């Protein structure tokens, strides 16, 4: 059992004692909460006394009348807001000043309770607030432990994994019910779509494996001297069939040897992702140019394509987890939305940099800098 402190600031003694009485034995308990809540009510008859009580007792919830003898309720609200106190403020107000209450909610009050209210109205309002306090505590706790990010990640992930499963299941049901009639050919489209979705899911799983490796990895890293030109060649050779299909020329420029101290598998992930993207989002008959160079402090990798490009707004998001740019031009291109976020995480772990410049319908240039000895630039 947890107790929430409530402070009532109202100049009418009847209201104050009424609230105290209603909430004395009131409890809020939901199945999803780890614990139940009860309430301890304190009272103040003026805004000034209220502020004193706020400072001393640090209430969780403030029930605030606006019309007070000295300073007004909104001023108390302002005080709480300015001091950035973690208090949920609810305005108690007569119907006549409803407009003011609405304004107060936009100034930071959580809600308002119109006067006169029934015990039930008060209770249900307190119930909502308690839920909110609980969730806030929960999110704070999650944030502290870094779980929040994990949590968001998992929710997006479940969406990404469930969507293809749902779609395949849907088609299978249609086929089982022979919805397109007895002709097998009528189901070709559905079968093609299922295969497509499975392919997408496989890609997602591969990317996820890369990602977990990146995120958990450090200990297992095998740092050796790696010739990036070799890595680039391998990546290009792997992608060759795909590029021939789309009639795209792949060119590699630069010296024969450019070495860095790195994990070669991780370097492969970087090149594979950048080059496969450059093909995937290219136009038919286009080209991909990969240029490697080095100066005394860092190695620079450029991957340029002649593809569909993207807007500045889109380029600012593409390194985040699960971001896929959804436009008319990309809708038939499949991807997990993880590739570039993996690349970014890897490059960060080497204290490198990656940036993109892009123009819609012209193409994109990805520039990677990896430090050799000390930070680049």
């Amino acid at each position, binding site marked *: 059992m947890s107790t929430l402190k409530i402070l009532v600031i109202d100049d009418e003694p009847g209201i104050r004692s009424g609230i105290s009485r209603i909430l004395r034995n009131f409890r809020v308990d939901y199945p*999803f909460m780890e614990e139940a809540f009860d309430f301890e009510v304190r009272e103040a008859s003026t805004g000034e006394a209220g502020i004193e009580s706020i400072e001393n007792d640090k209430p969780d919830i403030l029930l605030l009348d606006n019309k007070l003898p000295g300073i007004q309720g909104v001023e108390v609200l302002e005080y709480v807001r300015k001091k950035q106190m973690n208090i949920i403020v609810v305005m108690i107000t007569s119907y006549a000043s409803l407009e003011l209450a609405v304004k107060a909610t936009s100034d930071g009050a959580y809600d308002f309770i119109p006067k006169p209210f029934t015990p039930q109205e008060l209770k249900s309002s307190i119930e*909502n607030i308690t*839920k*909110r306090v609980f*969730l806030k505590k*929960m*999110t704070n706790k999650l944030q502290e432990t870094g779980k929040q990010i994990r*949590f*968001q990640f*998992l*929710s997006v992930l*479940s*969406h990404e994994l*469930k*969507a293809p499963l*749902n*779609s395949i299941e*849907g*088609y299978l049901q*249609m086929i089982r019910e022979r*919805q397109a009639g007895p002709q097998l050919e009528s189901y070709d489209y559905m079968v093609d*779509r299922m295969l497509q*979705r499975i392919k997408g899911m496989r890609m997602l799983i591969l990317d996820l494996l890369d990602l977990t490796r990146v995120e958990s990895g450090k200990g297992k890293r095998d740092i050796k001297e790696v010739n990036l030109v070799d890595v680039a060649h391998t990546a290009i050779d792997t992608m060759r069939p795909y590029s021939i299909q789309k009639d795209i020329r792949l060119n590699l420029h630069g010296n024969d040897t450019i070495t860095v101290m790195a994990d070669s598998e991780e370097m492969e992930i970087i090149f594979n992702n950048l080059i496969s993207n450059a093909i995937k989002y290219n136009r038919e008959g286009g080209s991909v140019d990969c240029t490697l160079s080095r100066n005394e402090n860092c190695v620079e990798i450029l991957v340029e394509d002649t593809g569909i490009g993207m807007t500045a707004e889109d380029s600012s998001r593409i390194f985040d987890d699960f971001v896929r740019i*959804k436009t008319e031009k990309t*809708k038939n291109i499949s991807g997990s939305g993880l590739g570039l976020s993996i690349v970014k995480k890897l490059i960060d772990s080497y204290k490198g940099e990656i940036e993109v410049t892009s123009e819609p319908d012209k193409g994109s240039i990805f520039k990677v800098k990896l430090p050799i000895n000390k930070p680049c630039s």
Partner: protein
Amino acid sequence: MTTKKTILIVDDDQDYLYQMKNRLESFGFQILLAESQKEAEELIEKIKPDIAILDLMMENEDSGFILCYKMKKKYPDVPIIIATGVAAETGITFDINDENNRKWIRADRFLDKGIRSEKLKEEIDQLLKINR
């Protein structure tokens, strides 16, 4: 003699659209499809559907909410179902959004995408009757 009721379905998953169209056409509805918030907005400029089923996450995480808001503004009497595939897993995250967003969203129903066909039809029939 009743004319067919028109359902607008908006979702960025082309397979979901295909399957929903199929299911709902078999129930005797006329189906309009849009693959994005933007496409749907253009569509409702020209046509007023009898009911709409919107996906939540499309171009952006909240595309469905925004579209819902805009539709309610344009056609207050058209019931809207928000269909989502994430409700169960996201639990708390979604609840928070729910609480805050319910105030201004006014979707008539929140349904899970995995809902069974008969149940979906029931919900749609109910919403259409209420607004008749």
